[in-house]
């Protein structure tokens, strides 16, 4: 069938980074209509300005995308989307952390008008080894890898290639950045229509992955900065820096690392009197977002 809708299962264990990917995808302007079926509707975090309509367990967005809760039956929910008035260019299905993607692929085979699903399993490089050894989920995590068509190795220490023997033995296509994943999705979504807009293409550069450094005023209180960081968009997936801040009125140098939701401040001995107090932020953000973030972090007020 030529007009069958392509489908991708986003697999991987709890906390691997599926939701961050989905939030990033739904918030971008890419000209594709993508419907995402999610497990945990509560974790979807989209700027209110992007939401067009909310109807029960379906969110329609201004960029043409939609997000629905899978509910009791994946088969029936997917069937409803495909038969709907406005079928998407691409159906993305988030697997629950306990799910085996192979079984979900089979369930989706029961949906007329849907292409045989591909599976992308997200691997959290920082916790993966521990998960594999876990007595309860080791086998499940392994099955999620084995049943994948390709892998997204997330949270890889910068510049490092995954050297894990398990991953190496799998011999599956790997992606190591969200950007690559978006590009891959763009290619999948193009199969249905002649739209060849690449989700990760250069013309989307405004929202492509950016690395930028902001000067943080040295009179900012540590706890104020910490509070501000929780207000960052989730698309900022990494931040780091050595900052001079006030701790109860006194100067103190900190090494800061993490992301907005989960960030550590470690007291550090100043090696050099004039360390530039800069925070490096990494993530796909629009110019508008970037201005907002700059305003937020470069003024001392809360």
């Amino acid at each position: 069938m030529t007009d069958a809708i392509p489908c991708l299962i986003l697999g991987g264990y709890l906390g691997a980074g599926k939701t961050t990917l989905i939030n990033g995808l739904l918030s971008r302007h890419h000209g594709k209509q993508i419907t995402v079926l999610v497990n945990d509707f509560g974790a979807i975090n989209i700027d209110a300005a992007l939401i067009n309509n909310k109807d029960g367990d379906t969110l329609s967005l201004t960029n043409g995308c939609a997000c629905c809760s899978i509910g009791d039956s994946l088969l029936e929910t997917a069937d409803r989307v495909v038969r709907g008035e406005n079928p998407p260019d691409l159906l993305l299905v988030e697997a629950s952390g306990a799910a085996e993607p192979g079984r979900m692929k089979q369930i989706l085979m029961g949906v007329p008008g849907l292409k045989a699903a591909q599976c992308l399993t997200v691997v959290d490089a920082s916790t993966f080894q521990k998960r594999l050894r876990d007595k309860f989920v080791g086998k499940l995590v392994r099955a999620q890898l084995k049943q994948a068509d390709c892998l997204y190795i997330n949270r890889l220490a910068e510049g490092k290639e995954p050297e894990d023997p398990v991953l190496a033995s799998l011999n599956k296509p790997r992606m190591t950045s969200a950007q690559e994943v978006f590009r891959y999705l763009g290619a999948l979504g193009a199969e249905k229509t002649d739209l060849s807009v690449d989700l990760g293409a250069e013309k989307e550069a405004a929202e492509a992955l950016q690395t930028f450094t902001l000067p943080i005023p040295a009179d900012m209180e540590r706890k104020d900065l910490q509070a501000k960081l929780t207000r960052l968009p989730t698309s900022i997936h990494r931040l780091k820096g050595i900052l001079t801040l006030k701790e109860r009125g006194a100067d103190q140098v900190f090494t800061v690392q993490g992301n907005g939701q989960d960030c550590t401040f470690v007291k550090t001995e100043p090696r050099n009197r004039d360390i530039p107090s800069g925070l490096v932020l990494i993530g796909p953000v629009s110019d508008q977002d970037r201005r907002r973030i700059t305003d937020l972090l470069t003024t001392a007020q809360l």
Partner: protein
Amino acid sequence: MQLAALFVRLTRKPDMSDITVFTARRIHTMSASQPHAEAVAVRDGLILEAGTLDSLKPWTDRYGATVDERFKDKTIFPGFVDPHLHPSLGAVLLPSYFITAMEWSLPDRKVPATKGRDGYLQALKEGFEKEGASRDVFVTWGYHQLWHGDLTKADLNAVSKDHPIVVWHRSFHELILNDAAIAHIGVDQEVMERHPQINAEIGRFSETGAKVVMAGLKDFLFNPARFLEGLQSLLQVIHLGGHTTVADMAYGIFDFEQEWMAFNAMINRDEVPLRVLMVPKGLPEDGAKESPADAVKVIDGLADRSNDKLFFDRRVKFFTDGAIFSELMQMEEPGYIDGHEGEWLMVPELFEERVRAFWTAGYRIHVHCTGNLGHELAIDVLEKLQREHPRLDPCYTIEHFGVSTEEQVQRLKQFGGRVSANPYYVHELGEAYWVKSIGFERASQMVRLGTLMRENVPFALHSDFTMAPAEPLKNAWVAVNRLSESGKVLAPEEKIPVHQAMKAITIDAARIIGLENSIGSIRSGKKADFTVLDDDPYEVAPETIKDITVHATVFEGRVFEVIKE
């Protein structure tokens, strides 16, 4: 004399009813302090006391009494309690036509054991002739290839070419449809051809393929009239089994509101001799928006609707691993012989997080576990929660207790857990799983009740109906004899004595669901719920306990005889 009569009249509360004394050949009270009695006095639905006609005199002399001797040749037990079954699943299944390898006693039919392919086809033909025309879709349940051989679409087409026939597998995970049924639910041609778990040629839909059929049959199976018919039938099944109290051990399995409406309409009535403890399935489910703390509030909110017949008691049900009938229990090494893996019904971390929220809110937790790795997770979480936030009350029950280890039982004991077991696995699956699934040692030792006794862990027996027949005496029979389907004794060390088995369907079952102060034994002050048997399980040969018939139940003092066809 006259003065005495006047005194009686004056001191008697004007609204108090008469006393009825039931006599029996023997009353097994299930109270260790007075195990046997010959008569029991009942007033206003409560037991005054049990003893002999003579010992009851302080009551009967003073107030007078009607002596009801209709059970004088019978044996009376406390009303049977099933602490884990699923009324909603029963309501969906029961309107189907049963053709099963094992015997099933249903109120409106006695289902004989049907074995062999020829036997199955014959029974199918007869069933269709009897009921086919009256149903839009003729659904029959109970087929299993181990007993009935291979069955294909062609066999069903031979029974009827143009009336939809659906054969629903014993495990619920597979269906076989004739052409008319495939056309009726409108399975997409492309799906038929490409789906890896649909065999178009022979009309077989298994596992994920079965979901396609179930989605197509939803309107038929869950049609309200059919559901109410099924619920009516379920109430008869429960009565026939001799139950007076059951627990719905996953209320909301389909839908909280619709189930409540149907139950309230059918069960909350004077003429229904049954009360149901409602144990909601734990939230949040995958996909729900609420946090675990908010989920506790949602479940709290359900309790407001309690009435005398359907009530809540701050209990909640969770799940670890997959269904035993589908071989999806999570197994520790060395796992399954064929190397396949079980499944988690909930991510282990989420299971822990959700259980913790209810534990700290003071709920009592019931955890479905089937494989030994499933048990390990449930007991790990119990240990963790006991260390974080110790509780002395009996607040954690393992449900089903399929494949476990002796060490797990010891650790369960150590941390205050208890067990509600389904012994029927031993009978129906023991031999099949020995040969094909997990080998002799682990299969024969499934549901290790003897170990529970040795370690002194409190336990009850349940049916998990529709997974096993809702017949407490059949469960007691399995627990006592451990006879496999073909009659082999499996792990004799795990047998339990008759008295322990009878306690496990009465007082110990009441204890497992926290109702031991009002039901479960025959003693002064408890509800007058009795199960009246035609024979005495303590006296018959143990292998025949399952054949004892239930004569009647007494619910809060009122007699409900079992109508036999």
